[in-house]
């Protein structure tokens, strides 16, 4: 079996993604963008690409901490914004999220995290109207495949430049884009509660997941061949199951077919239709 070739030509990737943002937004008459800036690497890379596509004066970067967010995240977000020439906007979502969380007495960690992610989505989509820009996505391929995201929350966007990049490649692009080392060197975290890291929650490292996903998804090796190549069968099966179980997060809602022509089943048009 071939070794996974996760390294990309970062200059080529940058060129494609900057053109993608400019062209696709331009089709719909947009020259501005809005996105959440968390202090993490994914949103930093999306922001850097948006700045190159639209110019810093046309990108609204929004920091949306919740009461329990690590203050270091905001500091990192500010550093990213400063390095990109952005004046970030601060919208504290605590009151907004607590309006629901306290009223309904939500204690479950996952539910609280989902509410926070969806609250941020509401803010971004609202500000996108005020700002007159499209919401730019910050979800990478690894988390989308693993379903490590909140449906209609952090996964919601109009255009996602990094959705076909594995986490390893996001790191590589971050270095190429010369983002501050503070966001490149820290362990990835959803920052929903203190001390949380993605890799603790997932139970494996991004590097392991990326190597496996690349061979499974991009190179289409089957489970037996991956085990032969040295992957733990249990790990492979766990990841395969996660990818399949989370397909619902990657698709629009299922529509029950009744008529002769049904949206998404046999009514087939690109978004670019008519633009």
């Amino acid at each position, binding site marked *: 079996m071939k070794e996974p*070739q996760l390294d990309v*030509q970062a200059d080529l*990737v940058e060129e494609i993604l900057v053109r993608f943002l400019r062209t696709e937004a331009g089709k719909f008459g947009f020259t501005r963008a809005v996105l959440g800036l968390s202090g993490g690497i994914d949103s930093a890379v999306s922001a850097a690409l948006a700045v190159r596509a639209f110019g810093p004066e046309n990108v609204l970067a929004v920091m949306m901490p919740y009461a329990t967010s690590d203050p270091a995240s905001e500091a990192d977000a500010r550093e990213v914004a400063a390095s990109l020439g952005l004046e970030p906007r601060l919208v504290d979502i605590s009151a907004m999220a607590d309006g629901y969380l306290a009223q309904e007495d939500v204690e479950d960690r996952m539910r609280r995290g989902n509410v926070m992610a969806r609250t941020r989505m509401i803010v971004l989509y609202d500000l996108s109207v005020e700002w007159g820009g499209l919401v730019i996505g910050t979800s990478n391929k690894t988390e989308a495949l693993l379903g490590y995201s909140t449906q209609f929350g952090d996964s919601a966007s109009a255009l996602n430049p990094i959705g076909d990049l594995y986490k390893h490649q996001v790191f590589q692009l971050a270095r190429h884009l010369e983002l501050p080392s503070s966001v490149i060197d820290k362990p990835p975290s959803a920052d929903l509660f203190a001390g949380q890291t993605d890799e603790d929650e997932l139970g494996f490292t991004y590097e392991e997941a990326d190597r496996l996903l690349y061979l499974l998804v991009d190179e289409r090796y089957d489970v037996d061949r991956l085990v032969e190549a040295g992957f733990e069968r249990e790990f492979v099966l766990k990841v395969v199951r996660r990818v399949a179980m989370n397909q619902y997060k990657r698709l629009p809602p299922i529509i029950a077919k009744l008529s002769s022509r049904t949206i998404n089943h046999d009514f087939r048009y*690109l978004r670019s*239709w008519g633009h």
Partner: protein
Amino acid sequence: MTTRLHLAQLDPTLGNLDANLAKHVAAIDAARADGAELVFFPELSLSGYFLKDQTAEVALARDAAPLEALRELSKELTIGAGFVERARDGRLYNAYAIFEDGKLLHVHRKVHLVTYGMFEEGRDFAAGEHFQVAESKHGRIGVMICEDLWHASSAWLYFLAGVDLFLVPSAGPARGVSAVHDGFGSTRTWRTLLTNVGAMFQGWALYVNRVGCEDGITFGGGSRVVDPFGAEQTALDSLDVGALACEIDLAECERARLKTPLRRDEKPWLVLRELQRLEEEER
């Protein structure tokens, strides 16, 4: 004697015939001003590529207004352009028209529709059945629309018919960004196919690809010209709209065939017998 041609690396707007015709007219004007005698456009250049249910909505009969406009312009130079053809029986084809001297000289219907991965052509188009030569005053032209080139038999049949210009209009996405290689994997693959066609079939291989982006898929440009010895002469390795201008000389085809008489030594009837044998064995 050399002939100047332009490969027009356009970015068609999805489903907008008027906008696309205007882009064609501008590129034709530029080609003429540059002294070109031929100008070729990419696959489905008048309609855009990922049409899905728009396919029928932008389909054109051969005498439809946008094609008539190109026919009229061909009084001054030879023009090749891609469109969705609506045949009289209602079938839709991924087609390519060549206009010359104010006439519709030839239409090629894509034979090898691509229906795998991100492509769904087999769902929207009927497949062409022929590889017929376009007898242009500038040489014998064999059109292979994109995937047609991937099947060696396409170029081989044109080779038997004595084609001088292997014209490959394409809507090829840019993909493959692994650091193992330099440049897009897709560009490298096209270069390999085209240099092989030039070397093995001893004609000019002309690749004209589109640029632009349709719902996240970026088309790779990289239009290029390979000579009848298989050497790349010029290329437009850019994702920008542009025109690749070059001079082609049909005498180079003759010189290649003189030095290495591949057509003379080809054995088409042996191939025919072998095909018949394989057919019998499969029964």
